């Protein structure tokens, strides 16, 4: 499985995701944002970080970079695309995913382990998880408050395009377990073809027992076959 990690100036989880991918036996390449062609890839990852300092709006400026047109082309022809944290923000800014990520409700950067529930385990990204399985995954963001218009929200629900929801340890989804104010506790969404996933939590931080736990492993292993 060939993966490409796009590196923007200001990306800072690029090494972390590369380590996780390699650990999972992906053949990974780093792609600098000024490049005009993508290497052959089955999976494109847009990593977390603060591309362009997150100035203006998080993800806005990376969304205008050269390489992004290539990512869009690849995505439209069915290539798998995973955007984590800043990567999710970039995907919404390019329009590959609908909606937007607003400032966290408490206006503060939030870094902590939260519980999320796998709301759809029928996709290429999630098939190794059980339905409604609760994962403990680290979040670290300023703008993770997912927002979209009512029609799109309806579509997300009807077509099972919500990937993960914030919840408690038992899987209960409620306001108390919504760290950032996201609509319906949404932590990650798919596009309608389900080849693009954007998520705020960092699965690449959860692949090593010494550092955290292994709840992120199955996302990568799902992709492998």
């Amino acid at each position: 499985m060939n993966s490409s990690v796009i590196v923007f100036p200001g990306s800072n989880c690029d090494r972390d995701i590369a380590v996780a991918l390699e650990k999972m036996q992906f053949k990974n390449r780093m792609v600098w944002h000024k490049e005009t062609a993508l290497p052959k890839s089955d999976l494109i990852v847009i990593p977390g970080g603060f591309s362009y300092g997150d100035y203006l709006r998080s993800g806005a400026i990376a969304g205008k970079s050269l390489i992004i047109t290539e990512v869009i082309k690849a995505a439209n022809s069915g290539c798998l695309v995973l955007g984590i944290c800043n990567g999710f923000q970039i995907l919404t800014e390019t329009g590959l995913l609908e909606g937007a990520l607003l400032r966290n409700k408490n206006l503060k950067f939030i870094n902590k382990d939260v519980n999320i529930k796998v709301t759809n385990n029928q996709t290429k990204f999630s098939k190794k998880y059980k339905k409604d399985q609760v994962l403990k995954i680290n979040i670290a963001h300023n703008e993770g408050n997912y927002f979209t218009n009512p029609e799109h929200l309806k579509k997300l629900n009807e077509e099972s395009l919500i990937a993960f929801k914030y919840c408690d340890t038992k899987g209960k989804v409620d306001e108390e377990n919504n760290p950032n104010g996201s609509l319906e506790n949404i932590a990650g969404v798919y596009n309608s073809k389900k080849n693009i996933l954007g998520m705020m939590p960092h699965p690449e931080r959860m692949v090593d027992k010494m550092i955290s736990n292994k709840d992120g492993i199955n996302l990568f292993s799902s992709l492998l076959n």
Partner: protein
Amino acid sequence: MKFSVIVTLKKDVLDPQGKVVENTLRNIGMEDLKSVRQGKYFEIEINIGDPKKAEKKVDDMCKKLLANLVIEDYKVCKI
């Protein structure tokens, strides 16, 4: 030619930042306050002589970069 651009969150989008500013202002004794909304401001200088063309260009900038029309509105003014 100089323009000001104001980008604000759409009405139906929650503005927690404005809310916090509002509360803080109340807490420091500004009781007559009714509401606060917060946005971004840009001062843009552009080398185009024709005001129409210049404004069109700035409008373009807003659409392409400065505002995210999913959540934001914008206003351009010549200054």
